[in-house]
């Protein structure tokens, strides 16, 4: 029997605010245990939360970026359960009236529905050792948004694409740094399979706290085959919560859904209702950067690049900014993106670097490309030069000097070579006499080639003209 996979995601994204959601403690990652806590984020008796306005702003940015309706009136709820790292024994979250609803995310030609985006506080962290459970509350009160998709995804690949796109959008929006290894982006997967006529289906299983895209993909694939196997055996999956075992590459049951807690949700009385003014939303909308999709469309129109190029040039905000900055001077988009992809991007990948880690200045990169465009150096030479720049951070002219790739600017030497070239290309001289001025370029190129790009093209140009006029 053929089955369709049905996947829905719940994504927790940590917002990039400087301070926590209900107090002014820092949200910095990796600080000493329990050093970023105050009575409020520890939920000590008598403390009250006050909502950080930036959190609302960031959540609305996410909402707009994911095409949601933004609620004008919203409020916070208490979600109650006991756990040592949940210091108030309730999490302040949203249940009844989330801030954003009914959005979507576009991947390829498919729309994946976004059911809701709500804001909430993070809990602390429990560290298990053999002797004890240790509690670190630095993260308690860090603002999160939870993005809940509709069950519109139908494969592990599609899910990966959706997450990639989502990550890109959140980074473009500048509201989350999406570092999965630091827990700033976490994902729960709800999955089941159903037959095409929808008569047979497995029960939904939730896989909690996946912290890499790879794990998401593997876990979905594992579950797909597990569900298929069970259905084939005339059994069904249990409605349950599972976790991904990274070592064994399997999912493991955590708890049954039937045992799911009654969270006794209840409107948070310590916080006022959230009223969002239309003008506030407009202000945010106006301040939004161009999003990946918009940027892709613009790149297609403006730079006329092939799709492969577009995808890489818009892969990240930094990459696209870099590209556009270079193209502003070197007005050959295709050539620029070609060079970026085949040289710069490749080095970044090999060295596991980000664009902002590059040692040399962007101006030097521009200079390098100009040398190529103006025919001063060959592409091959540029590649070599680039690799040196990449490692040393020097500018291309200095490297050329140091490596002895000095431009030939001694006129006598150039004249000698020009004469050689002209002798080899008598037809060109004829053509020139007949008014074909274009041959100059060809001749300059030939001289450059002969000098392995070391002659100064400007000088070469002048000398050729001079000689031709005299002939």
């Amino acid at each position, binding site marked *: 029997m053929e089955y369709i996979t049905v996947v829905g995601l719940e994504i927790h994204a940590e917002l990039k605010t400087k301070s926590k959601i209900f107090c002014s403690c820092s949200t910095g990652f990796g600080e000493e245990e329990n050093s970023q806590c105050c*009575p*409020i984020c*520890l*939920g*000590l*008796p*008598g*403390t*009250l*939360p*006050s*909502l950080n306005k930036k959190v609302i702003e960031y959540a609305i940015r996410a909402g707009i970026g994911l095409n949601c309706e933004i609620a004008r009136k919203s409020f916070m709820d*208490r979600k*109650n359960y*006991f756990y*040592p790292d949940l*210091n*108030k*024994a*309730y999490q302040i979250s949203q249940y009844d009236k989330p801030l954003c609803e009914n959005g979507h995310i576009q991947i390829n030609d498919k729309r994946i529905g976004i059911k809701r985006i709500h804001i909430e506080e993070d809990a602390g962290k429990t560290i298990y050792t053999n002797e004890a459970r240790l*509690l670190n509350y630095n993260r308690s009160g860090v603002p999160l948004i939870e993005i809940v998709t509709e069950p519109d995804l139908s494969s592990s690949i599609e899910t990966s694409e959706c997450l990639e796109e989502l990550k890109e959008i959140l980074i473009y929006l500048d509201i989350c740094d999406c570092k999965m290894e630091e827990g700033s982006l976490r994902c729960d997967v709800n999955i089941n399979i159903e037959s095409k006529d929808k008569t047979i289906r497995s029960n939904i299983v939730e896989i909690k706290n996946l912290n890499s895209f790879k794990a998401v993909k593997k876990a979905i694939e594992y579950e797909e085959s597990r569900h298929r196997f069970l259905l084939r055996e005339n059994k069904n999956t249990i409605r349950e919560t599972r976790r991904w075992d990274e070592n064994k590459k399997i999912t493991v049951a955590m708890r049954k859904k039937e045992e799911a807690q*009654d969270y*006794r949700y*209840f409107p948070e*009385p*310590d*916080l*006022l209702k959230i009223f969002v003014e239309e003008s506030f939303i407009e202000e945010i909308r106006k301040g939004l950067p161009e999003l990946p999709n918009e940027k892709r469309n613009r790149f297609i129109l403006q730079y006329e690049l092939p799709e492969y190029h577009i995808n890489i040039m818009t892969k990240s905000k930094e990459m696209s900014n870099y590209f556009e900055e270079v193209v502003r001077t070197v007005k050959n988009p295709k050539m620029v993106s070609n060079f970026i992809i085949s040289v710069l991007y490749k080095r970044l990948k090999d060295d596991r670097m980000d664009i902002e880690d590059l040692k040399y200045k962007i101006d030097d990169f521009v200079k390098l490309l100009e040398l190529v465009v103006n025919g001063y150096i060959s592409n091959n030479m540029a590649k070599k030069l680039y690799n040196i720049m990449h490692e040393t951070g020097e500018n291309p002219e200095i490297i050329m000097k140091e490596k002895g790739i000095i431009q030939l600017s001694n006129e006598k030497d150039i004249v000698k070579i020009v004469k050689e070239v002209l002798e080899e290309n008598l037809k060109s001289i004829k053509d020139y006499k007949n008014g074909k001025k274009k041959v100059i370029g060809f001749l300059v190129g030939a001289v450059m080639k002969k000098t392995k790009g070391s002659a100064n093209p400007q000088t070469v140009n002048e000398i050729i003209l001079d000689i031709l006029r005299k002939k």
Partner: protein
Amino acid sequence: MELYYKNIYEIHNMLRRKELSCEELTCTILNRINNIDEKLGAYLTIVKESLSEAKAVDRKIGNGDYIEPLEGIPYSLKDNISTRKIKTTCGSKMLENYISPYDATVVERLKKNILVGKTNLDEFGMGSSTENSAYKITKNPWDLTKVPGGSSGGSAAAVASGLCFFSLGSDTGGSIRQPAAFCGVVGLKPTYGLVSRFGLVAYGSSLDTIGPITRNVYDCALVLNHISGYDTKDSTSVNRGKKDYTKGLKNGVCGLKIGIPKEYFHDGIDNRIKEKIIEVVKELEKKGAIIIDVNLPHTKYGFFTYYNIATAECSLNLSRFDGIRYGYCKNEYDNLNELYSHNRTLGFGKQVKKNIILGTNSLIKTNYEKYYEKGAKVRTLIIKDFKEVFKKVDLLITPTTPTLPFGIGEKIKDPIKMYKSDILTINANISGIPALSIPCGFIENMPVGVQIMGGYFNEEEVLTCAYEVERMRGEITWNTSL
């Protein structure tokens, strides 16, 4: 009159004129606590450092510096208001040795005052007699066999017996006004949002307020001046700028429209109390007030609404007390659930557990609609009642309590009767309006309180009317036989 019964204004003048040092004053209070509090049981903690603070005030006066009208005045705090360096027990074994790392906003606002001690209360503010404290039973200063009311019974008893010049209590369903009525002092529950709750250990967050307990109306206004005002740390506090509540006190009631709500004079109320209140109303009429009979039709649902909301909120507010980070911890357990259950079984008292269970029950999925949500809907109706009535009248006058102070142990076995001692005060909390209780006379040598309620943020007229009642009633002769 004994120094410890003088009003704040007199004491301020004596300090200013150097007829009295703050140290002497504080000593007098500490001595009196030392002498009589064993019988009364008003205090849980005495702040010995208060003497050195008093000396600092004296140095200031000695330097000829200006002191504010409330500065250097010894006061007490209900022990559910957080204080740095001084225990905040909430009358509970759960927080027996808990010292808050921060001061409540009201405490910060009273920094120039001398905190002499923290007063007894029903555990976490739950109760109407101060018999539910894990530590001691406070007694009524007018008759030691009677309760002082609750849950701010310790504060009201301390003020009534000259163990401080004023106290701060908290009022969730009448916990300031009912003990004020029982002890013959003035107790004000301000409009919700006028006084910051930051640092008040929460019972029912949407109902809780902090307010002053004093021996006279002027003192009450003075204290309100200091503790009221917007606080960024409490987002439910309201920014309305500073007001001087002592200014309009003498305005009189002439022309004020005073409503008498029929529903507050029902059969369950002691007839002698009703008569006393009617007398007050007639006197006010003579002073020019316009008396109007009004209706608050949803009053009778207040009881149901109150217990739904208060217990629901309390069940969540108290769930943080698990003994893991602070508070009571019995270190014998096999697993996490057992740790929770041991700590909460042994750390909480009966009344608190009862409320938590009631509240948990009304919030579980299958009951939410039936209880909590319905409560919230009725709440809206009660608020509407008040909004409507305050279009017609400026103030409402009612009894504060349905009975005179009852005997210790008398109602502890009958929870419904105990709950009902708040029946006349809870609707002000449900709706958030200001309400004050002021003694208007005595029956069987026990004080009787009249309750004055006003529209939102209309503390000024409430206090003006209270001031008139006080003027008509005359001075109270305090019980000095303690």
